[in-house]
């Protein structure tokens, strides 16, 4: 079976986000595959180990995203498509979904996996939009995925807002990964070496037959006006005294001063 995984390059979650002139400073950031996408890659690899087939990564991102794509190939994916065109940049979730859907239309797949959200913009909508644009069913926020013997349907355990349920879907479908789906592997040395030889194909807007007016900044329905650091919190109070004294004083403050209990 062919599994396509949508991956996004994001700043490492341990990175401090620096902001200058209303924009995020990207210099010196270390980049990773968005953690939820990593669960999706891992799940795709496990499916292929079980059923045989091919895992293709599909990534929309700037030229530098190739390095992140190589990380996914090092984990064991077979090849990758890099949606690499300045025309794709400056878009929103809606234009990103349009580009990804146009790419998927050119590809052969039995299943598309993605993270439930990318941990930079936290939109949690691109993969679902792609499903709608391609008229595919989707299952969101999955922590366990089982395919039927004929691989025509999937049974998914989902975790949403602290509740769990089971959803079923026919395939092909787009299924998004939630934390808990699996424990992603680390790349092996052999994997890292091998990744250098695996094919990454670049597609531009013209390869997808997309009108530049419908994508990127010009097609976006939303505009990010500026980005600011979160408001600084006022300095706090350290409560002195031994543990018992401090604990009693804390409860008094929470009750009488902060009035939250």
């Amino acid at each position, binding site marked *: 079976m062919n599994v396509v995984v949508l991956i996004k390059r994001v*700043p490492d*979650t*341990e990175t*401090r*986000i620096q902001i200058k002139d209303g924009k995020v400073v990207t210099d010196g950031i270390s980049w990773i595959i968005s953690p*939820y996408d990593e669960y999706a890659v891992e799940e795709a690899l496990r499916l292929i180990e079980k059923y045989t087939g091919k895992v293709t990564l599909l990534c929309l991102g700037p030229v530098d995203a190739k390095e992140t794509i190589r990380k996914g190939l090092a984990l064991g994916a077979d090849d990758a498509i890099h949606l690499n065109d300045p025309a794709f940049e400056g878009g*929103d*979730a*809606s234009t990103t979904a349009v580009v990804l859907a146009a790419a998927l239309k050119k590809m052969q797949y039995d299943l598309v996996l993605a993270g439930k959200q990318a*941990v930079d*913009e*936290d*939109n*949690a*909508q*691109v993969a*679902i*939009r792609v499903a*709608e644009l391609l008229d595919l*069913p989707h299952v*969101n*926020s999955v922590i366990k995925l089982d395919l039927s013997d004929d691989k025509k349907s999937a049974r998914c*355990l989902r975790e*949403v*807002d*602290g509740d*769990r*349920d*089971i*959803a079923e*879907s026919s395939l092909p*479908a787009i299924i998004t990964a939630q*934390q*808990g789906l699996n424990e992603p592997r680390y790349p092996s040395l052999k994997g890292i070496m091998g990744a250098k030889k695996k094919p990454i194909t670049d597609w531009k807007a013209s390869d997808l037959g997309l009108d530049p007016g419908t994508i990127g900044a010009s097609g*976006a*329905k*939303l*505009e*990010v*006006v*500026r*980005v600011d650091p*979160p408001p600084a*919190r006022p300095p*706090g*109070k*350290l*409560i002195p005294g*031994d543990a*018992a004294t*401090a*604990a*009693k004083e*804390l*409860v008094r*403050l*929470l009750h009488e001063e*902060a009035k*939250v*209990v």
Partner: protein
Amino acid sequence: MANNILIVPEARDGSLRKVSFELVTVANEIAQGLGGAVHAVVLGNEVSASAEQIAKTGIAQVYQVDHAALQNFAPEVFTAALADVIRKTQPAVVLFGATGFGKELGARVAARIGMGLVADCTGYKVEGGTLVLTRPIYAGKALATVKAKSLPVMVSIRPNIFPPASADASPAPIEKIELSANAARSQVVEKVQKEAVAVDLAEAKIVVSGGRGAKNAEGFETVKQLANTLGAAVGASRAAVDAGWIDYSTQVGQTGKTVAPQLYIAAGISGAIQHLAGMSSSKVIVAVNKDPDAPIFKVADYGIVGDLFQVLPVMNEELKKVLAEK
């Protein structure tokens, strides 16, 4: 064209989630700015009680799509139902709660109608005839100001940020709308009972979280006891989750849940950047940690340098006294 606001309350297990009433508050203000009325659409199976409840919040009109095919979540059926109502009523703004339900349904409907969706917003204003929204990105490490280039637009509102509207006004009319499509290729087929989670993290007023300082699963019981006394949700740092002391679904941070309760108590949590991202917009933050240099103290309103096993049990007893007096 009137600039009406359509809200999508969330009916769950026979009643409306609290965020539904918060949407009314937000919608009223936006409607005032744009010059329009507030409408609501309630989707589900046998949701008359929910429709009647939201009708009493002072809004102008309620639509109810009630059908057995809307019993469990089925993306395509819910999308078809909501898209029909949007096409019929042509709202300028559609508001969802930024819950699992609202975010998922919003994304699919936005793609079907061809609308922008500003997700998980914590602030809004009407400016120049359109909406300008603020939303945390990088799990709260930064705040983005996002403008809808034009209306209509869809917006999901983070729960617990805005006050809920009360439901004591004279009821708005309720119009029933037929479901036009009920075929689903994907759908929820059963709900799973899991280990009793008393309070949902995202909606909790108080969260008590434990980290590495809890030492082990038994140690985590001390954290849970305090949460229990407070009627709070239990949270955890990645360290505690990775160590297997508590279920990963309790993880707070950039790769877990983002929370903004009235009170967040971090016990034995040092405050890694990705954890801070998930909780630093809480109203009041309490940190209990043995290490006086732990980064958690930088965001805490109240801090105690000490061992959680000595501090939490005393807090627990004191709180029981305080709560008993209430």
